[in-house]
């Protein structure tokens, strides 16, 4: 059990990073990565929602499976994620307003983050049990956070670098993202145990 949890964790964070090798969640990765602070906030929020969504969707999937409706799981998962994000938003607004303000618009946008839907669908595809699902959800989120924080810190530096004027703004960000993805390619094909 422990071995599988560890191998899932390292796999989700480094080897099969959601952004760099599965290309899920690229939209917030590019959108909320201009400052390290917001990137960290986004990473934490996504990790939280991915972990919780994995847990609840595991239960929902079991329910649908019993009723022979597993083909409806994508639809049901979207519903769960939307409700979850709304709940998290309400909860944060009431109890931790400072974090709520720091996350701002990124919080409701997690609803449309494909990494969240991706992780719950992959949980089904890989036939993970409850603990493995939650582990995969949380560590997948941590992998997302690692990627977006690394990317944001590089972008903060790139602002002061000299590059051709035509690369100003988004193009240089995409080049940066590509180089980072190449660096993460170094982990590909690694096997544990």
């Amino acid at each position, binding site marked *: 059990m422990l071995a599988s949890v560890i191998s899932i964790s390292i796999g989700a964070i480094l080897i099969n990073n959601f952004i760099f090798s599965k290309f899920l969640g690229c939209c917030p990765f590019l959108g909320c990565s201009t400052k390290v602070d917001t990137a960290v906030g986004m990473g934490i929020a996504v990790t939280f929602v991915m972990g919780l969504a994995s847990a609840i969707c595991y239960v929902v999937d079991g329910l649908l499976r019993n009723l022979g409706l597993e083909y409806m799981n994508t639809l049901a998962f979207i519903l769960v994620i939307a409700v979850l994000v709304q709940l998290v938003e*309400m909860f944060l607004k*009431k109890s931790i307003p400072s974090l709520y303000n720091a996350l701002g618009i990124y919080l409701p946008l997690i609803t449309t983050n494909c990494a969240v839907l991706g992780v719950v669908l992959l949980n089904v595809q890989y036939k993970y049990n409850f603990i493995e699902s939650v582990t995969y959800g949380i560590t997948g989120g941590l992998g997302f956070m690692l990627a977006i924080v690394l990317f944001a810190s590089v972008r903060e530096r790139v602002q002061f670098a000299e590059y051709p004027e035509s690369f100003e703004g988004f193009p240089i960000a995409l080049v940066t993202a590509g180089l980072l993805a190449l660096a993460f390619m170094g982990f590909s094909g690694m096997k544990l145990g």
Partner: protein
Amino acid sequence: MENILYAILVLGVMGAVFGAVLAFAAKVFHVEQDPRIAEVRSALAGANCGGCGFPGCDAYAQAVVLEGAAPNLCSPGGSKSAEKICEIMCLDNSAEAKYVAFVPCSGSSEKAKKLFEYEGPADCLAAMRFGNKGPKLCQFSCIGLGNCVNACMFGAMNIVNGVAEVDREKCVACMACAEACPKGIIKKVPYEQKVLVGCRSTDKGAAKRKVCDASCIACMKCQRECPHEAIVVENNIAVIDYDKCTGCGTCAKVCPRSIIHPQKIYVQD
């Protein structure tokens, strides 16, 4: 058939349960907030474009009410939104210092010497492609093709005689014009400032005399004559210290080039 019914039923029940949970949570986690936030929010265009610099309309509405953000930042809503927000918010803070945009260039078509006649599309950026400074010889000159006029959402910019002019009564100092100006010459000045220098070229006086008849030639006359030491010639250009200036207008009278312009100010009672 049974399958479809089943699916509809299960997902319908799920949706209903989740809806109930959310409704319940909304009650439990309800947060009291300033009712004006909702009013301001409804006055905005609601495009969530982020053009105001805040993440979304809700955040902007909140910033207007709680942090006193400027009421004129909503581009899609334009002047209508700004007026509505002012009605909701500004009634009590109209006494705040007012600023307006100012184009520090007096090089009208007759006064500024030209390098060539430009007949391309009416766009300052397009004209800038030629010689990197447009048709007028002075590199600090207003090109006068109206990029700022197009950028202004309040109808406060006009091109008069080949130079952009600000309608001080309509201007809300959002500085959209300054961003649109490829030469970046438009400045923000206090509305109450009575005299303004209509030139910003930092070239040498003699060089400026050659390229434009309405240029500051750094003759220092204003600096010498100002009774309040409020105007100084720095980098070949007269600069007014708005804190020291009393608006007596001496500089405007002595300027041999007549480029220090007295401004019309309507004082509200």
